[in-house]
């Protein structure tokens, strides 16, 4: 299955379909899921992992990912992919296991599962596709929806005074020692698509080395849910969305990259507890920071 396609005798192959991609996807025009699927297929093929990889699906537009990726796959209840992946990886530690989750799935109903899988340092990878909306159910507000953004369940725009601010999941997870790699990327243009592929590759390499949990949050589009043309959606992604959500590598512990833990501001109490355990305690840089790529 993974044998490379032979190049024609009179020429060389410039581009071919990744071997681990099967059917054409059924995603809407301008949706980013197809790009992310292709990147995963390319990375697994390049790393030679396809024959020992298990996909843990989720609920949302990507629920049929097992129809598009030529991988063994199991479906999860909404939000539970990180727990399902924990079960798979614990009994098959020699396999490569990853979850593919959207932001409604991971950042709302699945927060407990993802936080604790990350805290335990489970040795699987999460590909977290964030388009700031519940796409499959008709474009409702998600925890990741931008302030002021109109959705079918925030028809006047997201009012942060009543529903709060978007949830920066990757920043939150970056604080946990079990997280060996965490990055946020985008599919807004070819340069960022390339960076996304590099991040996905690094995340799987971390898993191959059995270091711990790795996650790549991919900022993506939902033209239908956002009420935009595909072109306008891409423009919105590279402006408003990427202005709010910093892209870059937050954690790569094998390379010594990790954010400092927040420290108390003001008079410190007696030494002890988590703060004392932290190696260095400069003032927090977590709020709205942008990590250099």
């Amino acid at each position, binding site marked *: 299955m993974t044998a490379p396609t032979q190049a024609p005798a009179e020429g060389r192959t410039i581009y071919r379909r990744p071997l681990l991609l099967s059917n054409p996807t059924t995603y809407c025009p301008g949706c980013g899921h197809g790009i992310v699927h292709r990147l995963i297929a390319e990375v697994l093929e390049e790393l030679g992992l396809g024959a020992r990889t298990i996909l843990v699906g989720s609920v949302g537009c990507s*629920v049929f990912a097992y129809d598009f990726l*030529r991988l063994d796959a199991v*479906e999860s*209840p909404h939000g539970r992919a990180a*727990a399902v992946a*924990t*079960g798979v990886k*614990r009994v*098959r530690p020699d396999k490569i296991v990853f979850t593919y989750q959207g932001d409604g799935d991971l950042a709302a109903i699945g927060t*407990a599962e993802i936080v604790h899988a990350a805290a335990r340092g489970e040795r699987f990878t999460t590909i977290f596709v964030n388009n700031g909306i519940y796409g499959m159910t008709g474009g409702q507000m998600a925890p990741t929806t931008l302030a002021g953004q109109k959705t079918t369940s925030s028809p006047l725009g997201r009012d942060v005074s009543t529903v709060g601010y978007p949830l920066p999941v990757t920043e939150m997870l970056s604080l946990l020692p079990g997280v060996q790699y965490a990055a946020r990327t985008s599919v807004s243009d070819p340069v960022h698509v390339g960076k996304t592929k590099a991040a996905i590759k690094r995340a799987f390499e971390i898993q191959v080395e059995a270091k711990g949990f790795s996650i790549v949050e991919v900022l993506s589009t939902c033209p239908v849910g956002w009420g935009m043309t595909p072109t306008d959606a891409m423009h919105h992604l590279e402006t408003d969305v990427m202005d709010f959500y910093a892209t870059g590598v937050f954690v790569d512990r094998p390379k010594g990259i990790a954010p400092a833990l927040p420290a108390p501001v003001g008079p410190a109490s007696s030494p002890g507890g988590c703060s004392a355990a932290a190696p260095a305690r400069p003032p927090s840089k977590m709020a709205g920071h942008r990590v250099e790529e």
Partner: protein
Amino acid sequence: MTVLDRPAGAERPHLVASPPGTGGEASPVPDRVLMKGNEAIAEAAIAAGCDAYFGYPITPQAELLEWMARRMPEEGRAFVQAESELGAINMALGASAAGARVMVSSSSPGISLMAEGMSYMAGSRLPVVLVNIMRGGPGLGSIGAAQADYLQATKGHGHGDYHVPVLAPSSIGEAIELVRDAFILAERYRTPVMILADGILGQAMEPVTPGFKHLDPPTPDWSLTGADGREPRSIHSLNLRAEDLEAHNDELQATYREIEAREVRWAGEQLEDAEVILVAYGTAARVARTAVERARAEGLKAGLFRPITLWPFPSDALREAARGTRGVLAVEMSAGQMVEDVRLAIEGAVPVFLHGRTGGSVPSPDDVVAAARRAWATTEPARREPATTRTAAMSLVKENER
């Protein structure tokens, strides 16, 4: 009597020598050990080759989790204390999909949380053994023993058209056997199977025979191993097209009919000449057995019908047993749940009565005898001779080994 102890740091369940003169010290493997129900269930699962256990602390099943926390790593098997019962059942889903033999356990409120995953596992045809050590409800209820989850267990925990086989031990020794049987059923039919016990069975200590039975490793031909040299497999319950989902449901229902035809289990005591039959399972059956003895000592011919599979309910056997009696009395630690299946089974042939206690209260044998007397007094004499084909429970274990 030898006591099975577990001192901190012990590598294996530790057999403490019997006091001198009791005879136990002569034998390296005692013929009987004293074990707590939760711990016996856990050790039985380990002996049966359970590859992975996932749980969350809740009274009165916490010792099961604790036993697994120590023993599973010793055996090099998977153990995770999950962040919630939702986490635990979904870890089980993943491990089962990957072909492992898996157990989860909880008590009533936790089982409610697991209901979602049970529906998905039933829909995805994934084997797992779930243990419910029932406590009082509804809500947070109490930590006392109860049988108030009968309807939840037998009529469906989560959404959708499905059943899971439910096995109800009434002693710790029986629980040990049923754990192994539960794994057999789960893998034979690719379904979740529930062990339904109550807080007394979880917490009490009883003498049991050690030497838990081994079960050969599962050999699923459907599990996820990575699509190496074969077509990829997907395990899912989603079937968006009506005809696809109906075909899938037809397949599930055919499996349930097969289970109903082949796996019904029950036990009968003193049914041959019984005028009033007591129907009870689990701890309530222990009370009912005492009540039958007292009633007979006082001249009332009572008998005990004890369902072991609650789903499938032994309806045919109960109807046959009840034929010609004056009436049937359901004894439950609930406000009356199993009695609904008793009525369905009896089909109005004889009157059906209920004696139930709730909230962690246990019926007393004397109250049960009094209820049986009332049932006797308000019913007509037997209309014909009781059926003679009363048989004791067929052993599923023997059936499985055939």
